[in-house]
């Protein structure tokens, strides 16, 4: 019996139904996980984008680029 015959015997609705169940399971798992994460963890993750340009300098020259960010934001002289 060929693969084509086997698949032809199956009801087509089987494929999307199985996938939909899989999706719903995965969706609720992600939903539960996302909603139960600690506030600190979420804040840390969300703030990565704002801290990513910081220059983490060695101890002998501790500086960060906060000043650089504010200085570099300026635009326009026309």
């Amino acid at each position: 019996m060929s693969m084509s015959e086997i698949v032809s015997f199956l009801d087509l609705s089987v494929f999307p139904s199985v996938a939909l169940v899989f999706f719903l399971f995965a969706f609720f798992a992600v939903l539960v996980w996302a909603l139960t994460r600690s506030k600190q963890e979420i804040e840390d993750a969300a703030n990565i984008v704002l801290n990513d340009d910081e220059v983490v300098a060695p101890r002998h020259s501790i500086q960060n680029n906060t000043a650089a960010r504010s200085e570099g934001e300026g635009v326009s002289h026309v």
Partner: protein
Amino acid sequence: MAETAQATADNGAGNHQDTNGLEAFVYDDKIVRQFAWATVIWGIVAFLVGVIIAIQLAYPEAGFGISFLSFGRLRPLHTNAAIFAFAGNGIFAAIYYSTQRLCKCRMYSDLLSKLHFWGWQLIIVSAALTLPLGITQSKEYAELEWPIDIAIAVVWLVFFGGNFLMTLIHRRERHIYVALWFYIATIVTVTMLHVFNNLWLPAGLVYLFQHGEMPSAELALKSYPIYAGVQDALMQWWYGHNAVAFFLTTPFLGLMYYYLPKAAERPVFSYKLSIIHFWSLVFIYIWAGPHHLHYTALPEWASTLGMVFSVMLWMPSWGGMINGLLTLRGAWDRVASDPILKFFVVGVTFYGMSTFEGPLLSVKAVNSLSHYTDWTIAHVHSGTLGWNGFMTFGMLYWMMPRLFQTKLWSKKLCAMHFWFGTIGMVLYILAIYSAGITQGLMWRAFDESGRLTYPAFIETVTVLLPMYWIRVVGGLLYLTGALIGAYNLFRTWKTRPEKYEEVVHYAPALSKGPIVDPKGKERLHANTALGVAGDKVLQGNWHRALERKPVKFTFWVIVAVAIGSLVEAIPMFLVSSNVPTISTVEPYTPLELAGRDIYVSEGCYNCHSQMIRPFLWETMRYGEYSKPGEFVYDRPFQWGSRRIGPDLAREGGLRDHNWHYRHFKNPKDVNDKSIMPRYPWLLENTINFDEIQPRVDSMALLGAPYGELLLDNNAVKHAQEQAFDIAYELQELGGPSYEETMDKKVIALIAYLQRLGTDIKKSEPEAAAAGGE
């Protein structure tokens, strides 16, 4: 200014060890600058070609009767330039800039970055040369021929994907920020889409292997897809829709999650929502492709599946849009004065509009009106100009002054660009929405006696011309805005320092082994074995671990996108009842096949569909609706996606050869209101009969039963005989002498057009006789 230094101890990857255990590194901003400039330049090219073809629709003579300026050849150039050159370089610039900073490391390999940049530009130039020459596969947004396809696969997956993944693996920031998730989804899914939609048989190579010679350069680049008809259509729109999803949506969402918080100087509104947004989107989007094929010969189960998942897409799409807009909470006052934020706000708003409209258009009842009309074009442009264009411009205005280590030259010009772009877009889409809805309603209008109100297709075309002119104005305004933007960025670049300072960053290397939440560990020790497992799930360590392991994360993204693809493709390919065969449908004759290849080459699918839907207003206008079995020898399928001209599925036998000849020579000779361009080169250029046997041989390899036509160059002899017959009939009908036309391309094209849709009208004995000729 932060402490800066010249990177003197750069080891080639921009990394070196500091004595305090911190690693020093320098970002590769040169590659970002290169991609950013490429975005600007190719953007102007894409918009300019868009304006040219918009003018051609309103004023066909703007093609000047020149082959490489014809609408059918330039339109794919416009779409490819907008998608892969403008948006493509834009996302690469955005990704190279943000990935290095989010990973706190330089890109893994400078060499791969350079190969990626120059390889991609070479691909764009190849497209710009081949498409106007009519070298195309004719599959929308996948037109490029097989050698370029291979180059795309290598550049995208090896140079770009490999470099990106290795950068993630060598990162110094443990958490992989959500923008990077969207980039991962982009890379793996586009690879999958590109490879599986571009499985072809190169006709020239086949002949070269069989006979040790190549008849022509044109044939060397020619390929036929391994899929035919319905299956080819499913694969193409699985690709076409998901090119929008994973080339024009997911990377731009990644861009939004990085650049919008940067510009607004506040974190994304809800990081939790971004996680749910990501997984829902990547799982659902991949299913939606079949909604492009409602009421066609595609089996109904597939198109319904596409519709259901398209409607489900509303939720994650709007979740993302709301998350983007609410990121500006508390910063709305700045939107009024900051044109960069304006670009982002309008970009995200257009994302919301487009992702509302997309599911709406996927609903079958709406689609029956909108499909093949300009409504789809308006929808596409609100997404591309509004979402992709404005997000890209916002990103460039924010990023390029930083890359040039200076300030933006003119905020006023930036604001001017914004307003030119916005007004241009609004003019464009309002005019084309009106055109689309007008078209759809006129096609389906019946009078009191039950007849079509507008039986002549041309009536539904000429009424649109004022709207086409408004589109030209809208496009010109958008192009003007882009030129102003380019000038502003150029002047910004002129104020750069003589030598760029390279800021040395320091960060600890990523620690080995997982970080276990101490609180969670205590709880785990107190539970039973079952409880331990459950607790792990509830703590979310499974996903936390996933976020920190890029290879595993990538694997699960592949699983998410593969499910929808396989569920649609496997039954379509393996269940034979999906494409019931029709005994009278036979392969094209060698001359018809050559004519079909000319049809493909000229991009006729850009204006003409070959798919009659089972609606009364369509069957009354065009004839019997199209059946899946009619297309089993169509490689590639030519169903099209819009009707600037009428459907051609049943064109065969409707008009005589001379009508077609005169129509190609000058459409206004047969219809003075026609907006079809002239095709004088088809009347002058000759058929290369040496190419016909290799074309037939390739189709036979793919399953077409050509029998004796495969022997002794019989295909060529058959083609010459049929060409003589048609040329002679043409002469009898008052056309030019047969000696003048029998070797011209127009004869092959007429042969193909006269065959279209005629197979199902044949009785079986007639078909058998025709096959035995």
